[in-house]
């Protein structure tokens, strides 16, 4: 009985708890914030938290620096699947608390739902993998300071203005141009809620001047930065394709509270002003609060209202999340994440969700190679010539999708290039710095590597790894004791092999021609020729298969060899290795079917049902027209 009563009295808290719990679970289980942190190209501006005083002083020397510093610190926790969402939920919860207090102080009992608006929009952001943590943190600071303003402002316009000036200065220092929201809130509060015209106008005038006075003249930032930093119209957001995807929603989030405040003022008019001028006793307040949350006088009617309102809340949040959920993008990010982890089984599983995506094809082929199945099974999956190395022009600037593959292939120069461009584009993300340090260590550029290691050394959670390598470099500058570095270094093409060769394909060929025992490069080169239907080029290289440690010729290569030997004058002869009987039989059957039908099109149906997973089928039906 008592439990039921308690539960009933805390109905709104129960709703909030449900909302935030589901919010947390959704971020942890579905969104997985690690993807934002780990996956290069998922977002820009995650730079890792440098644990050094100079960074603190440098950050704090600019308006908005504190918000940025705290945001960079907290974003570190996105690295951990179950902790990152705690950070976001806490942020959303504090924002809700702030709004709650604003609503209560303005006696806007019909606007209690506004507390959930920023949370829901933030949920949409993360569902779409859009990172606005700094902007939302600035908003939180502003709401906190606005609460303080409501508490300290008085009926005397002079006192209110003094408090406003003090708080706007603090707000500007903390949240840069985000403080313009504070100005708007205070002005509406004074003009519409409290009906204090002078104070309201004063807030507007002083508030509009503060970025100029403090930002431009004080901190010497540009006019643009002074009036836009940490606001939705900041050029850093509008000009970045990764951040500007949900700008209308960012505006909606920023605008929701001012609009509600405006409505509260219009709806409550005199009542509200009275409420504020005559502060009720603590006891009265408590009663009023209980009353406010007691939806309906009748218990059963209240339960229904509670259920309906909770369902609407969860429905809006869930429906929106469903609408914004981008499974394709999520899968691509997951592929990148697990590729970085070296979890190739998982990469294969995820790539199969999007069999036709070139990015998936590229990752799947890489996974197949690592699982030792590439040249045997590659035609069990959809293939495309551009899917092997993302050589299509559309991927020219997709730097971050390529570096892992380049490292595997020993194309360290290319890896260095795409990683450097990634760093420039997306900021000093510690994972990019780590890879950059590695590629420079592999290529023997220890001086350059030491700078990346030096930067990483100061990053939270990465310092130990970097320190270990720096110590190693001191005692063993060539890293001769590091087997993995040595292995990868041995794959690098010699300088004379490819001095002016920019395309990876040509460089792969140069590697093979110069007797480099790079098995992956060998398989990829053959696969590339096969996928492009360049069977003559294939024939030139395939003869060297016995130089590599194959026990059997991989199935796809067997089929290509048979195809070449049938149609090409220059046949491929194997010495030790042999074509398996099974492959020969399959090839003969394929040819028999093609002979039986008069035209290529006529044969396709039967060939597809029996030989879809063969190179022969791909060769005749799968090669796309360029």
């Amino acid at each position, binding site marked *: 009985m008592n439990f039921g009563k308690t539960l009933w009295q805390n109905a709104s808290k129960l709703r909030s708890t449900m909302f935030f719990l589901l919010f947390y679970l959704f971020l942890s289980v579905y969104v997985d914030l690690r993807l934002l942190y780990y996956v290069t190209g998922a977002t820009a501006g995650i730079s890792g938290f440098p644990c050094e005083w100079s960074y603190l002083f440098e950050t704090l020397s600019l308006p908005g620096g504190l918000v940025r510093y705290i945001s960079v610190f907290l974003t570190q926790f996105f690295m951990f699947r179950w902790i990152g969402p705690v950070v976001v939920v806490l942020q959303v919860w504090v924002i809700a608390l702030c709004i709650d207090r604003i609503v209560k102080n303005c006696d806007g009992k019909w606007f209690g739902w506004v507390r959930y608006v920023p949370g829901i929009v933030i949920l949409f952001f993360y569902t779409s993998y859009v990172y606005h943590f700094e902007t939302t943190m600035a908003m939180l600071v502003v709401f906190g300071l606005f609460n303080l303003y409501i508490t300290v402002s008085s009926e005397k316009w002079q006192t209110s203005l003094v408090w406003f000036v003090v708080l706007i200065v603090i707000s500007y220092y903390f949240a840069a141009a985000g403080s313009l929201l504070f100005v708007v809130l205070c002005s509406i509060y004074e003009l519409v809620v409290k009906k204090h015209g002078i104070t309201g106008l004063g807030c507007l005038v002083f508030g509009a001047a503060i970025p100029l006075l403090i930002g431009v003249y004080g901190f010497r930032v*540009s006019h643009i930065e002074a009036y836009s930093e940490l606001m939705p119209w900041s050029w850093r957001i509008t*000009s970045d394709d990764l951040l500007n995807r949900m700008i209308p929603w960012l505006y909606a989030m920023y605008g929701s509270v001012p609009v509600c405040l405006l409505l509260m003022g219009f709806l409550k008019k005199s009542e509200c002003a009275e409420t504020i001028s005559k502060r009720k006793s603590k006891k009265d307040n408590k009663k009023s609060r209980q009353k406010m949350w007691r939806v309906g006088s009748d218990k059963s009617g209240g339960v229904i209202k509670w259920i309906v309102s909770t369902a609407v809340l969860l429905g809006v949040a869930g429906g929106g999340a469903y609408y914004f959920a981008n499974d394709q993008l999520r899968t691509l990010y997951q592929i990148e994440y697990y590729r970085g982890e070296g979890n190739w089984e998982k990469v294969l599983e995820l790539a199969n969700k999007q069999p036709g995506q070139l990015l998936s094809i590229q990752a799947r082929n890489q996974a197949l190679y690592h699982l030792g199945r590439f040249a045997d099974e590659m035609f069990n999956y959809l293939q495309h010539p551009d899917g092997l190395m993302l050589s299509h022009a559309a991927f020219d600037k997709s730097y971050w999708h390529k570096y892992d593959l380049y490292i595997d292939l020993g194309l360290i120069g290319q890896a260095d290039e795409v990683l450097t461009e990634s760093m*420039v584009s997306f900021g000093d993300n510690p994972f990019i710095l780590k890879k950059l340090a590695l590629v420079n260590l592999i290529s023997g550029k220890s001086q350059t590597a*030491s*700078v990346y290691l030096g930067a990483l*050394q100061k990053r939270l959670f990465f310092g130990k790894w970097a320190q270990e390598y720096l110590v190693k470099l001191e005692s063993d500058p060539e890293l001769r004791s590091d087997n993995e570095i040595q292995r990868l270094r041995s794959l690098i*093409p010699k300088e004379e092999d490819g001095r002016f*060769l920019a395309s990876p394909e040509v460089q792969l060929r140069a590697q093979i021609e110069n007797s480099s025992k790079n098995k992956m490069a060998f398989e990829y080169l053959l696969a590339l020729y096969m996928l492009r239907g360049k069977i003559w080029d294939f024939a030139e290289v395939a003869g060297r298969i016995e130089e590599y440690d194959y026990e059997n010729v991989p199935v796809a290569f067997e089929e290509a060899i048979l195809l070449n030997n049938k149609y090409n004058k220059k046949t491929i002869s194997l010495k030790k290795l042999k074509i398996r009987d099974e492959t020969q039989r399959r090839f003969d059957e394929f040819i028999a079917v093609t002979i039986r039908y008069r035209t290529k099109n006529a044969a396709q149906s039967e060939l597809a049902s029996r030989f879809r997973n063969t190179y022969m089928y791909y060769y005749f039906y799968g090669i796309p027209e360029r």
Partner: protein
Amino acid sequence: MTKNYKYAILLVIVAIGAGIVICFKRDVNEDFVNFIQVDRKARIHPDYSSIVIPANISPMNFAVREDGELYCVRISSRKGSQIEVFSRTGNIAIDEAQWSSLLKQNKGEKLEIEVFCKVRNGRWLRYETIHNTIASDEIDGYVVYRKIHPGYRTWRDIGIYQRQLGSYVESVVLDNSYFEGGCLNCHAFCNNKTDKMLIGLRSAKYGSSELIVNDDKVNKIGTKFGYSSWHPSGKIVVYSMNTVYQLFHHARKDEYRDVIDIDSALVYYDFGSVKVKRCEHLSRKDRLETYPSWSSDGKFLYYCSTPIKWLPSKMEEITKEMIEGLKYDLMRISYDVKRDEWGEPEVVVSAQESGKSSLEPRVSPDGRWLLFCMCDYGCFPVYQPSSDLYMIDLKSERIDGKFVYNKLDVNSRASESWHSFSSNSRWIAFSSKRMHGSFTRTYFSYVDANGIASKPFVLPQKDPGYYERCLRTFSVPELVVEPVRTTKETLGKVARRKIDKVVNVPITSATIMIEGWQERE
């Protein structure tokens, strides 16, 4: 209870204060009589040993790279009091006032640095004294450089900064936040002063343009200059137009990036007539011309030129051999500024004779020295590990008519480039990759009356470990005697506004139709 609590806090504060005082006292009372002498110099970073330094340089903080629990460094010269610095980390932070006073009192004298290191057994080691020299000539008060990530095709944060050399104060001249993330590069000054300045801009929103500061007035003109040089009179600016082609030598160990000019030419902007003009010799169809640089008297324009080996429209025909054969001659051509007349070009350093590509000529303000780069091939020395600095004594050329070049001792195995002279011609600033490979850093070297350059030193930073984690390159260091007076707000405002002057680039015989662009250091 509350009172006790207050007392407890007070006690803790007093204890901490006492601890600090005791630690400090223990440090300064260390006994250096019974030290063990080590027969080598201490390893310090950055390497500030055996160098010549200007008296007006900021404290050259460094880190002692020796194992120890406590470090002490004593800095002294003939006059003035000795500076003593203790450190538990090895990072030596020198007091700015003491340093400045010591250097100013001892111009032309030796500066001695003694390094002591206390090891685990409590004994002090004393390393060999580091001997530096304080030059009698001061360096210009400021250096202006561009800081950018070492990207090639993209950029994010990019800015031109000025650093006060007597302190650690660095300020923004202009960064891309002032015009919403565009790109800016190629700053140039006239006679080491900042009343005349050029900055090239490119922005998707505000267009490609050149900011011209002329007698502190700023204009934005509708064409972007390439490499540029102010005539000492300030009446004209010669600039290059370059169509560039990016290359990647992925198999090369030191530097995989490279740039060549597919086509280039020199033209000049006349402030009097507000026109872009051309000289036939500087925009030949059969040659690539670039890197203009005026002599200090304005009578000669030095520049680099090489025969073009391809049709600019047929880039696909460019071969490795063509690129490796791209070696620039160092040329000069006379000019009469009053008549606006050009003379005949003459070869200063022939690529055929040197076997190398000569680039980026700069003449010292006293007209005595011609400093330039030579590298194996190409036109972009910062991407050429073979690039080294060379100097020609123009005074001896005036006597015997021969241009004799000498390789400076400042060079390393890495690329040296982007050099400039101080206004008194005694100091050079240049970019070098010797310390951190892909990341260029700014170095300084003293050039004596005979043209002998001293061992270079890197631009000092307050934190000696700064460069070890600095992910930006410092390029195009230009020494200037005064700070840039035009504020970044003014420059930013002009950058954002419409073009003031539309200039028509004359169709040259080199016919650069497309504005070349790429991101590069």
